[in-house]
């Protein structure tokens, strides 16, 4: 490229910039997968905590599975090669939504509805919903 750039060269430079930008942006679109995984993970954790009646068994299983899951996901996220723009701000609400619902569902259902699938199955779907919806929206961006 020189200062005596022709219209054709300018068009080629613009096209090349768009291609390069898109290639790197594609690498930054991992948040959708991360959110969908955590949405389903939170839902599964609620089912596990709600359906197993023995306190020590459910806590032991929950901690072992949840800690492993979180470590694997965080490790995976840290190895991504690019981050999308304004990603954190855009997705924060979905994370807060699932976290708050998880806390509320557990607070209301633990002991009172322990082992009752009719409570924990819709509750798990409700907990997963914000992150799953957010993840699907993020995937479309």
């Amino acid at each position, binding site marked *: *490229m*020189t*200062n*005596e*750039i*022709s*219209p*054709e060269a*300018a*068009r080629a*430079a*613009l096209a*090349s*910039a*768009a291609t*390069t*930008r*898109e*290639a*790197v*942006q594609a*690498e*930054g679109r991992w948040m959708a997968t991360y959110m969908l995984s955590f949405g389903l993970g939170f839902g599964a954790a609620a089912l596990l905590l709600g359906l197993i009646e023995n306190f020590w068994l459910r806590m032991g299983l929950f901690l072992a599975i949840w800690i492993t899951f979180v470590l694997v996901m965080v490790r995976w996220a*840290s*190895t991504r*090669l*690019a*981050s*999308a*723009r*304004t*990603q954190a701000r855009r997705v924060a609400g979905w994370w807060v939504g699932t976290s708050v619902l998880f806390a509320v569902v557990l607070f209301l259902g633990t002991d009172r509805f322990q082992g009752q699938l009719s409570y924990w199955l819709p509750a798990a779907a409700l907990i997963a919903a914000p992150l799953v919806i957010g993840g699907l929206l993020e995937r479309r961006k």
Partner: protein
Amino acid sequence: MTAPAGPHPRHELDELLTHAVRFSVVAALSGVERAEFALVRDTVEVSDSVLSKQVALLEGAGYVEVEKGKVGRRPRTWLSLTADGEQAFTRHLAALRAIASLAVAQPAEES
């Protein structure tokens, strides 16, 4: 022949970004919060040393920020576009668009 309405849009081109590799590096970073050195290197298709040299120039101009860290035991270098870099790139793209929209000059009539 009529005189052009204003200065030729080439005067609006950013001198630093008229270099193909630097232009591509900034284009690569323009759509993301940050990107890993290796990803930019592979996308722009240059060697480590060429990218390091051009990134150093962009960093010196305040267009690119370089952040070094580690993932596990692996060293990582992250590159991101600064606000100044983004503005310069936007102006440069506008100048390129203006040049691209210029009509191709008609060859002079042979006498």
